[in-house]
């Protein structure tokens, strides 16, 4: 066999120079009020909280923490807007506003992306290429529905519910706001939205866009705050609809809180998705899919592929390649355009991930992180971590970690893969990797998960309904099916 190595040539090292996205496009105020009835106002009876850049622990701004009177005021504004303006407005007119918001998000995309990375810690590549374009896409998609609701399969003239209380998480702050606001507005509802306390800034920039789009006052209200604010909003008697995305624990609390009221509820909660790799998978792309499944957005993804189920006959090869691939991931400054892994969103979340990872070691799984991965000294960071030798009974195979931690389990037959994949209280998503079409269909029909990805993972599209089975929640967001969550279907039934 030919020997082509030329000894006099040395292998170079090629270090990418820092390529930070300019931060000055974002103009931060030192403090932010609440966005109620079309204007930014001070809180009446609330407090204030600080939001920090998780990559540096620098305080970015102080935001209002809405109290009960603020919630009253916001819900009243939303009610008035629903009754007087937005409810009676023809769909084709509502559509114009939604299109306008979508275009404004596109126009201000870089500003949104930088702000999102600052406040959340996610890499600019993701906020720029995923979060912001998808947020705009959700407004575009739902703008198209606004005047076509009669053709959505919910009767000739489906009616809105009224005022929607929406509480969203910190992992995709702008995108989750778009998922919530766009369908609600398209179907004729008005909203009071509460962003997460650690990531309120992009929602407040969205409030600016709402003003810029000249949306009638009160149609969209944004109240910042923590758990107490959220509970006050959800519990407000004049709310017709509650939509929550977040942890299963809080989801259950909300369900208890509003039980016995007229409020409609949709919940999009946690997950512990299985990413199933068969021995006839396209291995190189499967490895990418595993990486994208669990290390996208630092694993702060409810539908993350946190359990890798790999067929035993290829387990060694897949793990070798996965580890080699993980060694090339670039962790660091979220604003650097070459960063693949950003910061953990908060000290609290970092503590949770650290605790669960420690439990994995205690329960006997083998822990691995790339040696090349050096964590910055300041800020909240966690190295990409892979646990092998994980048993179904380990906590890291049962509980949602919501961080860059992958648990690897193996299987021998398709039935075993299916049984293990479904053996979880969650059911949000799953992935299947095989070049055999019939096996994809066989698995997809039997997996108890709201989304099943075949030969890909973590792909989102506003036309595709998203939501969970079991303790991952109920209701769908996106697509024709997602409209149902904001329509009064009992009228026709």
């Amino acid at each position, binding site marked *: 066999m030919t020997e082509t190595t030329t000894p006099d040539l040395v292998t*170079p090292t090629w*270090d990418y*120079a820092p390529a930070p996205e300019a931060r000055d496009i974002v103009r931060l105020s030192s403090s932010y009020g609440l966005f109620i009835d079309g204007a930014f106002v001070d809180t009446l009876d609330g407090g204030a909280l600080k939001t920090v850049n998780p990559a540096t622990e620098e305080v970015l701004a102080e935001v209002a923490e809405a109290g009960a009177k603020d919630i009253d005021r916001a819900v009243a504004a939303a009610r008035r807007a629903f009754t007087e303006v937005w409810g009676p407005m023809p769909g084709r007119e509502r559509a114009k506003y939604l299109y306008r918001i979508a275009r404004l998000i596109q126009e201000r995309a870089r500003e949104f992306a930088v702000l999102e990375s600052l406040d959340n810690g996610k890499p600019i590549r993701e906020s720029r290429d995923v979060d912001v374009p998808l947020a705009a896409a959700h407004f575009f998609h739902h703008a198209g529905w606004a005047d076509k609701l009669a053709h959505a399969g919910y009767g000739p003239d489906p009616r809105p519910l009224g005022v929607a209380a929406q509480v969203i998480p910190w992992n995709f702050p702008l995108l989750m706001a778009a998922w919530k606001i766009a369908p609600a507005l398209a179907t004729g509802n008005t909203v009071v939205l509460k962003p997460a306390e650690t990531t309120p800034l992009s929602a407040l920039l969205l409030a600016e866009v709402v003003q810029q789009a000249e949306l009638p006052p009160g149609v969209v209200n944004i109240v910042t705050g923590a758990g107490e604010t959220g509970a006050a909003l959800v519990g407000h008697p004049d709310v017709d609809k509650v939509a929550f995305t977040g942890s299963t624990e809080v989801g259950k609390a909300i369900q208890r809180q509003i039980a016995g009221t007229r409020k409609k509820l949709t919940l999009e909660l946690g997950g512990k998705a299985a990413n199933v790799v068969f*021995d006839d998978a396209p291995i*190189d792309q499967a490895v990418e899919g595993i990486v994208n499944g669990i290390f996208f957005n630092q694993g702060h993804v409810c539908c993350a592929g946190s359990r890798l189920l790999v067929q035993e*006959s290829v387990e060694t090869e897949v793990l070798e390649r996965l580890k080699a691939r993980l060694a090339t991931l670039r962790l660091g400054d979220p604003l650097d355009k070459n960063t693949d892994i950003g910061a953990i969103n908060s000290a609290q979340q970092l503590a949770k991930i650290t605790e669960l990872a420690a439990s994995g070691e205690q329960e006997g799984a083998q822990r691995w992180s790339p040696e090349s991965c050096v964590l910055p000294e300041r800020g909240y960071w966690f190295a990409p971590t892979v646990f092998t030798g994980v048993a179904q009974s380990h906590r890291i195979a049962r509980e949602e970690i919501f961080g860059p931690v992958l648990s690897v389990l193996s299987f021998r037959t398709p039935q075993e893969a299916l049984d293990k994949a479904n053996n979880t209280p969650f059911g949000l998503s799953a992935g299947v990797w095989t070049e055999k079409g019939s096996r994809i269909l066989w698995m997809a029909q039997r997996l108890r998960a709201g989304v099943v990805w075949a*030969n*890909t993972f973590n792909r989102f599209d506003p036309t595709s309904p998203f939501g969970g089975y079991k303790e991952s929640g109920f209701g769908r967001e996106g697509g024709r099916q997602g409209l149902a969550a904001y329509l009064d279907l009992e009228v026709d039934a």
Partner: protein
Amino acid sequence: MTVVVPSAVDFAAVSDLADAGESDAALRRFLHGLPGVDQVGADARAATLATRSIKKQAKLQAIDMAIAMTDLTTLEGMDTPGKVRTLCAKARRPDPADPSVPPVAAVCVYGDLVPAAAEALRGSPVRIAAVATAFPSGRASLRVKLEDTREAVAAGATEIDMVIDRGAFLAGRYGQVFDEIRAVKDACGPAHLKVILETGELATYDNVRRASWLALAAGADFIKTSTGKVAPSATLPVALVMLEAVRDVAELTGQYRGVKVAGGVRTTKDAIRYLVLAHEVAGAEWLRADRFRIGASSLLNDLLMQRAKQATGRYWGPDYVTIE
């Protein structure tokens, strides 16, 4: 049976296949046992790597690497010894005003122009690559292809860029393709062999992967995307699949083979994207001229203009780089 990653034994067995009669079946088993390539996934991975932002010192380094990896190419019916001589002068010293610019890796010409190139490049480190084997179609008898190769080597070519018989490959006559590569490799003697897959005609990434392994098993020193005469020529996902193949062969055998992208690489930005791909898919070990090449004609001038921009902060006008 699923062969997920071929073992060193599989690869050695396939590499040692002797005659086409037996090798067709063995090659089919081997090549069709390779893991498939998911097109959507490969495209997505290439697109993500294309967003890498290479700035400042990293960009300067990339530009010099790209210059040193360039096969400065002229493959036109209107080529003359005079044209080749001017190209060779450019290859030896790409920027007359700046001796710190490295020479290119090779000059790539048709076989009959090798003597002119050899004369013009005497005493320089620039290698002489000749396209052979009835380039670009490959539609000639094996006897003619081998003679084409021997003549180029005798005239001074140190590298041979051959084309595979795509017709035979697509018809499943893998043994024939394998034997031709093996025979041309023998005819090359000391010259390095680059095997052009013409991926634009192979159409699928599965075919690109199979052709890559086939050529590597038959003894190719380099696998090369395209002739430049068929659209599409080099693309990022195709280069990705080929880089995965040389990476895997190196893992199996410890031997480093190269990848050459050719056709359509015109700008510094394009070239840097391919370097990023080589860097992150195969590894830093491939960032050397004996393992990665870019076949191009107009690329060099863009690299020189970008180099000056990085050094001086100003763009040259096109009149400040030479046109060959």
